[in-house]
């Protein structure tokens, strides 16, 4: 029963061990993923609506306010 999972794990372990160029590529991938998910996501690119509002209802209300009381460049408050 355990033979198949063991074979699969062994396949991946041997594959990773025998990599040459792949090791460099994996290092690049890991550094990139850390930059993307840790640095960029956490510190620079938060999800605006998720961080500002707690519920979907609040988010909907905010977007509704934006699209009905729009301050577009050169525009004016359509509904005061």
């Amino acid at each position, binding site marked *: 029963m355990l033979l198949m999972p063991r074979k699969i794990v062994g396949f*991946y372990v041997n*594959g990773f061990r025998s990599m040459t160029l792949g090791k460099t590529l994996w290092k*690049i991938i890991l550094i990139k993923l850390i930059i993307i998910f840790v640095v960029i996501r956490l510190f620079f690119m938060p999800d605006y609506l998720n961080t500002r509002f707690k519920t979907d209802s609040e988010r909907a209300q905010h977007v509704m306010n934006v699209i009905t009381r729009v*301050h577009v460049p050169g525009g004016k408050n359509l509904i005061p």
Partner: protein
Amino acid sequence: MLEQTGLELVNWARAQFALTAMFHWIFVPLTLGLSFLCAFFESIYVKTGKEEWRRLTRFWMRLFGINFAIGVATGIILEFEFGTNWSNYSWMVGDIFGAPLAIEGLVAFFLEATFFAVMFFGWDRVSKGFHLFSTWMVAIGSNLSALWILVANGWMQFPTGMAFNPDKARFEMQNFWDVLFSPVAVSKFTHTTSSGFLLGSLFVISVSSWYLLKGRHKDMAKKSIVVASVFGLLSALFVGFTGDEAAYTDAQKQPMKLAAFEGLWKGQENAGLVALGVLNPDKRPGDDKDPFIFEIRVPGLLSLLANRSPGSFVPGIDDLVYGNSAQGVMGADEKIKRGKVAIQQLAAYKKAQQLGDQVAAETALQKFNDYKAYLGFGYLDSPEQAVPPVGITFYSFHAMVALGTLFILIFFIFLVLTMKDRIEGQRALLLLGVLSLFLGFIASEAGWVVAEVGRQPWAIQDLLPVTVARTDINVGSVKTTFFMFLVTFTVLFIAEVGIMLKQIQIGPEGK
């Protein structure tokens, strides 16, 4: 001041999105094209059993792996940008694309984690047949993983199969199949993926040409050229066919984009197609200046391509801005009036809901529904704002088409000369072969410029302009992340080129 800040914010957010998308698009088309070429090479190896085809397959697979590894996850940054810079847009379309994109991501991940591993670790460890099957699955999976993002893009260009829910301020999917099989989505997917096949073929021809110029790995280079030029030629012809279809859907669904990339200011019957031209940079909507400093037209062809009907009327930018009642074309000026009614009724609906006045809410909603097709125009101040940047759209389109035509010739000549075993002595042609990859990238990126700049000012065609789709955040933070991405992408690009060149230098003997 407020006005300038808003525009500056939108422009920086757009610049950041363009930078990320164009960087992402360096890797994606190569993945799409090279994955199938690896599958073709390996199929020949399995069929013939000849060792040189195995060596050749492993070499191109290695370059495919480098491209995949450097490019992987760069697209995720685009999703972050949606949430940070384009939160209104992101909220409004979340119901339509959130789930399919998430499912696609998971399927692609598991498909790639399984078959990618077999493709790279499985040589001599699994049977030839299963290895080949895995390579094909990677090719098919990679191409399918482009499906939903292109369908999403198609929907933004032609929003269909949805309804706006004013209680949630969201577009909600009404008909999955209408979204998936909308004519814009179909032409977007077929045109984009086939252009990736074309670029992958150019990559193989470029590297192989370099080997032939250096007198190295000549047999492998010639074998690679034959397969790549057949695949490239078929792809290039298909790209032309799907491009024609894309232009037709533009004419029907986004006539302003068609008018911009053709530099057509005044609508015409029996309109000619501009084969070559230099635009007059001083031309503005509504004036009587000549649109071109110089032009070569093919008479009547634009009418045929745009409407599938010779002699038919093709609206120009001025018709679409100011209207042309004789031809039944409503102008942006009238659409703006209707759009403002839609916004006012939406606001009235909201207010009535808050007051608990159901009768007033129902009345406002009915009126909103009458005008909702023009909603986005209500956010524009002048009809001229509905015109995209004409110059960049026009030149990008014509560069793309001219290069696409050149690629057909390149693939054909490379195929014929290689089959006749006369390719080695053709130094000038081989230099063009090396250069063709860079031309391919220019054409490929130009295609996206046409699609995206040509649909301005819309985030969602006719419904949501970019000025409303944006988040109201500090422009400084968008500038900071723009330069951060610029540095990150430049480093990654240098890494890719460096590793790729090193592997090409080593050649098929390397590991």
